């Protein structure tokens, strides 16, 4: 479980996050949703330590990450897997080397075991026979899958995904979403997904945090989101006519 307390972050005079509290449960896909520019990615970066919050604390299973010393931070980070928006695969390494990279750096596993583990993870994300391909030779959806394989290769306790289906066609996006949820349940990890994609929200939002103008406006599940009663959330969810008609009961 990950707990955040009173997270605030400003850049120059602009407040991006203002006193965010929340919990992300183990074994669930926890979503952070909101319109563009509401601070979702900044919050995610504060949680994983890429940005230091101005105020507030982040706890990983009761371990205070924000105030931890370098060794403790390193230890916690080694339990984290992260899927970046563009995949963030290393251009100079092929698929196999990319997925194997955390094992090379963080473990002393023999090469045979590492290859076995890489092949297992690639198979798990539905990619086989692409080990020697370079990132430039594979599609966007495949890059995301490789990114997921790299994120889970070291058996993380926490998985973070920053807009995992941005730039993907709806079908591939759903496949990626389902993969994230399956992996979360299969390995019983704490998954945090940042998204503004309503398909993801409805499909995998087991616990949802809605951000609006840098503040937490609502928290609930995908079943509760339709009747939240929060005007700002309704405006985010029911953006198109079909959804509005669905809400009004016309469909």
């Amino acid at each position, binding site marked *: 479980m990950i707990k955040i307390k009173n997270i605030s972050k400003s850049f120059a005079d602009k407040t991006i996050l203002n006193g965010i509290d929340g919990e992300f449960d183990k074994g669930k896909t926890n979503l952070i949703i909101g319109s563009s520019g509401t601070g979702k990615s900044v919050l995610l970066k504060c949680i*994983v330590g*890429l940005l230091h919050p101005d105020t507030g604390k982040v706890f990983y299973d009761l371990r205070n990450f924000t105030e931890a010393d370098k060794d403790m931070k390193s230890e916690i980070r080694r339990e984290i897997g992260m899927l*970046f928006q563009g995949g963030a695969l290393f251009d100079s390494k092929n698929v196999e080397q990319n997925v194997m990279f955390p094992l090379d750096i963080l473990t002393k596993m023999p090469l045979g075991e590492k290859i076995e583990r890489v092949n297992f993870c690639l198979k798990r994300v539905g990619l086989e026979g692409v080990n020697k391909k370079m990132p430039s030779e594979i599609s966007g959806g495949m890059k995301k899958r490789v990114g997921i394989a790299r994120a889970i290769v070291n058996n993380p306790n926490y998985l973070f995904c920053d807009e995992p289906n941005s730039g993907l066609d709806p079908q591939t996006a759903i496949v990626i979403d389902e993969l994230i949820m399956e992996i979360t349940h299969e390995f019983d990890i704490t998954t945090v997904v940042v998204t503004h994609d309503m398909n993801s929200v409805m499909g995998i939002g087991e616990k949802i945090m809605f951000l609006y103008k840098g503040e937490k406006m609502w928290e609930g599940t995908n079943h509760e989101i339709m009747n939240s009663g929060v005007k700002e959330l309704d405006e985010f969810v029911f953006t198109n006519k079909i959804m509005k008609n669905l809400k009004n009961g016309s469909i």
Partner: protein
Amino acid sequence: MIFLGSLVVRRETFKTYYHLTLEECIQIGIKSILLFMLVSTFMGAVTTLQTAANLVSPFVPRFVISQVVREMTVLELAPTIMAVIYAGKVGSSMAGGLGTMRITEQIDALEVMGINSASYLVLPKIVASLMMFPLLVIVAAVCSMVGGYLAGTLTEILTPTEYIYGIRYSFNEYFITFALIKSFVFAFLISSISSFRGYYTQGGALEVGISSTQAVTTSIIAVLLADYFLAYLLL
């Protein structure tokens, strides 16, 4: 200075750096050597022809031409001009590569894994530069003198014996030491400045281009300033 300090904290294993440094040596050294040889050969050839054109007095022996080529090559052309070329080829590539890694979140990916990205990415580049640039300068110096020999003898400005005599005449070994000191300093300046510019790139593709340009410009200015101060202090 803070950036350089960050390179030596939270380091990875020696084996990791060993492999990365070897890769960088190939990237920096082996893949640059042809360009260096080509430029320095022509540099030596042109220096020979221009020196010959200016030394018209019958009282000046012709072996002085190759002596001038040697002094210019060892003291200035090999280390400094090659440093400018190095900044253009390797420095821009370092800044561009790191800048691209920054904007495509590859550096963030390293940080999330608990890796000191500055140390992991930059330290091998600086170490490889310190190893390879002095070697490239030595190769360039030799090629320059060979270029001078070919230009001088093929155009019959001077005989092979005169050229070799001039190259060996009144040779001061300290100038080699001086050239190597310069090459170490330039290698450090170019690799660290270029890495710094690339590592702290913010924005998109346009900013990566700007970082590369700034890396080259700043490196060349730093090289020229260091060249002056080293000459003032060590000669």
